[in-house]
């Protein structure tokens, strides 16, 4: 296990290096001169040059890159051109809101989909299974923002149960915060449910046909024990990876859904940054989102190892 973690951390460090490289390269290759963007089309040649040297933009690219990375390591991500505030501070403010949304969505999805998947598997090809599969198919076929609109229409406009959008900090008003979280998290969770359910179902079906399930039956175990103790514990292992991927996916969905629900998270921040060519902010957002992806996958691997004794001990025998 120790070796395994060491190996994974090393792997992440390498990945992160490439992410910074790409984030830096892409934003620098992007057409459009930053100085020109800041000063507007009427700026003079001299003032452009002066600003460029002030921002350090006329130094060689590798120097700029090293500078930026050293800053990153020290927690200094530069200053936003659009907001004139430190990028780190902007992100620190928005990120928890997005994480809250993504976690809530994943939580809802798991709570709904795993039991449904198990239920569908043990009733394979019968009414409950067919219904659940159809439901999953519909869930997968619609894009996330559409679910957002449907949820607003049904729960906010027609039923008037929740507000249509906005954000309130949970430390200020817990109930208000949760009612505003409910719709975006529900919509996204609902969209994710389909994938996880299908994965749980097929994984359960595979495990249920294993020899050891056969033996468990031959030992006189009840159906409940076989499903929960023998099958689910095995079947959940591949599902965990899917859940982690879905969390990353949820994070991507956040970008769209935050727009729909007026949720001031990192998704909205990234959109603003791109629209205004705010290069330091774009770079900061890319690195942070990549970190989130990497950590959710790392968490998945650790959970995987926790559940699968073959990996848990495999690293150092």
């Amino acid at each position, binding site marked *: 296990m120790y*070796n395994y973690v060491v190996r994974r951390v090393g792997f992440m460090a390498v990945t992160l290096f490439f992410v910074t490289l790409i984030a830096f390269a892409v934003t620098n290759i992007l057409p459009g001169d930053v100085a020109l963007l800041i000063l507007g089309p009427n700026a003079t040649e001299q003032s452009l040059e002066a600003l460029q040297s002030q921002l350090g933009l006329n130094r060689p690219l590798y120097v700029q890159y090293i500078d930026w990375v050293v800053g990153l390591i020290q927690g200094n991500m530069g200053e936003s051109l659009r907001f004139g505030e430190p990028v780190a501070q902007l992100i620190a403010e928005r990120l928890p809101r997005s994480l809250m949304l993504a976690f809530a969505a994943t939580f809802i999805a798991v709570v709904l989909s795993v039991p449904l998947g198990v239920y569908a598997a043990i009733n394979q090809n019968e009414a409950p299974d067919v219904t659940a599969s159809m439901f999953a198919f519909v869930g997968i076929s619609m894009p996330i923002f559409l679910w957002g609109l449907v949820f607003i229409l049904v729960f906010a406009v027609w039923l008037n149960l929740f507000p249509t959008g906005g954000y309130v900090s949970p430390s200020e008003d817990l109930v208000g915060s949760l009612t505003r979280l409910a719709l975006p998290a529900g919509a996204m969770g609902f969209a994710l449910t389909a994938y996880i359910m299908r994965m749980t179902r097929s994984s359960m079906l595979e495990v249920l046909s294993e020899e050891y399930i056969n*033996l468990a039956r*031959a*030992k*006189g*175990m009840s159906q409940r024990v076989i499903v929960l103790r023998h099958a689910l514990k095995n079947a959940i*292992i591949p599902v965990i990876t899917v859940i982690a991927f879905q969390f990353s996916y949820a994070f991507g969905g956040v970008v769209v859904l935050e727009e729909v629900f007026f949720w001031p998270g990192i998704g909205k921040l990234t959109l603003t940054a791109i629209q205004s060519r705010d290069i330091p902010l774009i770079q900061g957002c890319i690195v942070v989102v990549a970190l989130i992806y990497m950590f959710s996958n790392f968490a998945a691997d650790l959970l995987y190892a926790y559940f699968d004794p073959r990996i848990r001990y495999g690293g*150092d025998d």
Partner: protein
Amino acid sequence: MSAHTTATESEQSDGPLLDVRGLKTEFRTDSGPIVASNEVSFSLDRGETMGLVGESGAGKSVTARSVMRLIDSPGEITGGQVVFNGEDLLQKSDAEMRDIRGNRIAMIPQDPMSSLNPVMTVGEQIIETIRRHQDVSKSEARELAIESMDDVGIPDAAERIDDYPHEFSGGMRQRVLVAIGFSCEPDLIIADEPTTALDVTTQAKILDLLNEMQEREGTAVLMITHNLGVVAQTCDHVGVMYAGNLVETAELGDLFARPRHPYTRALIDSIPEVDTDYDELPTLDGAMPDLGSLPSGCNFAPRCPHATEACRTGGDPTLDSVGDTTSRAACIHADSLDLSESTVPEVGVGRSDIDRSGEPLFEVHNLKKYFSAGDGVFGNVHLSFGDGGLPTIERRYVKAVDDVSFDVYPGETVGLVGESGCGKSTVARTALRLLEPTEGEVFFEGQPLHELGSTEVRSLRREMQMIFQDPQSSLNPRKTVGQIVGRAMEKHDIATGEEKRERVGDLLERVGLSRNAASKYPHEFSGGQQQRVAIAHALAVEPKLIVCDEPVSALDVSVQAQILNLLNEIQADENISYLFISHNIGVIRHICDRVAVMYLGKIAEFGNIDDVFSPPFHPYTESLLSAVPHANPNRETDRILLEGSVPSPINPPSGCPFQTRCPKKIGDVCETEFPELEAMDQSGHFISCHLSEAEMSERESFITPPKRTETNAADSD
């Protein structure tokens, strides 16, 4: 006193322990119902062992699972009775059945690798069985579980109880399964191929264990197997199944001495026995009919050498007593047929002499293949903590093949034999450069394969073909057989167009298929036929050497005999050489001219087949050969059971690789000095052991049947 008698009375009824009457189990399939177990009747007394044998798909497992009522949809038990302890199990509720399973009737499954739950410790899996059926506390159950692990010979049971299945070897896992089976002291154990997935040496130990447990607990065993050797070693009486029917039941001795059904005779005859020379194995032509379309007369008629018109028209014969014997057979001629004589000629004319005066076709010198152990970014680098807590980095290798040398002459078959994981397949793959050798030299017709570039190797590959264990995975399912075989000819410019088609047809006939098989797809053939296609594919490029990696291990004995005969025939015609890998000693003995016995990546013994099977023996060869179960209930071999299991090839023992298990180990010299292969005589018999020749010659030959030594010693020239 009286309490005791009533207890036994309520438990035991007068009749047999298990009485199966007219059991019928059907499966609904797209092409109509299949009767996998058709009016099967047999009975089993307390403490007895009954064998159930027959070809794959004959219905053995279905019958056994029906007894436990473990038949899943689309299957259904549609008739009969399963009377167990005087009660019909088919009348019981599901809950009552669950109380019986694992408790009164337990199962030992075939595959130790897949039958234990990988995410539960072995202890949890034993304890849950005990707690399910006995009213004991958690800690009491744990004590019982440790005791049962002790009983089946798992060392340090108290420590190992919390280990996961993957931390046990295959043989140890099978012991865990035996422990689970016996944990509630059942009256009946159903063992479905309990040793098929194991090596001979492990198989012998598990069979001994089963016997011992059975005697101690007085348990009855229903032993399902396709291995008549296992039957001969363990059973009191036997049932033979064919196409869903029980076609013969008999006492063990009678079954072998005087089979009453022609199918039984054929089954016995098609096993290559270690102590017999054959030119050709008697085969059972054709295949078991599809259960969906059975012939109108006797099911066996299309393959039966004694079939008459009455057999083909009279309907399927029922299982009836034969004369006044205890045997029953489903054959209308059972009373008149005398099947006591084997159809195998006793002694063959001997194998053709191989001319080894010229150059060998294929030569391997000091071949080594190390795989790096480990995976991931840091590869095989392994971090370990020394005494001082300081991490040290080491590189680790699996020494799959470690210094192996042998040669193969034209027209010769050289065998590689040994337990699983000893490196047999890796030797073959590395020698053919399908894997890059770590070290060593390989010559093909004098050309140094190890020095050639990959394009040159590819053109030489035409001369060296390979046949694998699983024909299905080596044949492209989307190509017709004609395309598969023809493509090989085109690739190596042997024939194209009309000529190619002609030759493909000839080849298919050569391997015993019809010409129009060319237009069919691999899945339309049975396993044996697919192996024939694979052979045709290998022959298509007219190779000089074919490497056969367990080519008959996945096949039924009758089909196995057909394929072995075919390989022998082709060799006689074309003077092809084979490098033949198998863990089946009988097969090796039958087909090979010379054999290398491998242990832990090294050759322990090498020589002519007769020399290796006769003294002097390497201690490992001796135990391997002694462990082979003979399909002859009268034959007693004094078996040497090896302790422990094969050590890890990452950390092989110092000195002699076999020293950790060797029953004849001398002492320090075995632990410190590697025994080089040493010539025993002029005939090219080599053994790697520190013992003297006399010490290695204490046992008699395995190939001289006892009766021949008595009468005539001149036979063995």
